[in-house]
């Protein structure tokens, strides 16, 4: 799944560690989401969307089959 996490994080001027702290996850998790190696769970996706004040659809775009 494609996502805009890195773009939105850098727009806020946060480091991966800052975001990880706000989400209460490890920095590796943030990095894995940004590099699209890991799709977060629904609760974590909601948390991200709430943090960036956007909808989940703005943040995550499913791959075309």
């Amino acid at each position, binding site marked *: 799944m494609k996502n805009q996490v890195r773009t939105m994080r850098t727009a806020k001027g946060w480091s991966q560690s800052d975001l*990880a702290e706000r989400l*209460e*996850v*490890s*920095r*590796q*998790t943030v*990095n*894995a989401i940004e590099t699209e*190696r*890991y799709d*977060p*769970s629904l609760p*974590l996706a909601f948390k991200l969307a709430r943090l960036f004040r956007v909808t989940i659809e703005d943040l995550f775009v499913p791959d075309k089959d």
Partner: protein
Amino acid sequence: MIPNHNGQFALHLESILYSVDMINNLLPEAVQTSPSEAIKLSGWAGVAVIVSFGSRWWLQHHADWNDVLRTGVALAPIVPSLLWVRSITRWMQRLDELQRRIQYEAWFFAAMGTVFLMTALNLSNSAGTLGPVRMRNGLGWEGAFAAIFFLYCIGCALSNRRYK
């Protein structure tokens, strides 16, 4: 505790503490446990080693006791082992979701790997092709623990690499 088993006993306890430290080092700093918590986490593994040595000593010295009691004593190390699994599971539930996935993948790899290793050893043993290293009793409790731990480290490294 048991004179002729003292060295082996200390070696097992030491290997548990070493394993705890290594498992901890495989985790990112944010989710690493403190040394005291790590020791607490593996407390039941230590108890399992003590019970295992105690039960082996008891079985050697009470060969004439009834089979039900001997079976109970022989299986006694399984109880603290299960409690150790429970404390590991609880610890994993406290990790963040990616770390939890990595741990599940690593433990699954280790468990399945150990099953296949034990099956391969048994089949080779039945065929008599193990030569000088024939294992009449399979891997044994300590062998299984060592195999699981070794495969867990490989599984952890592979999973970590996938999500790096």
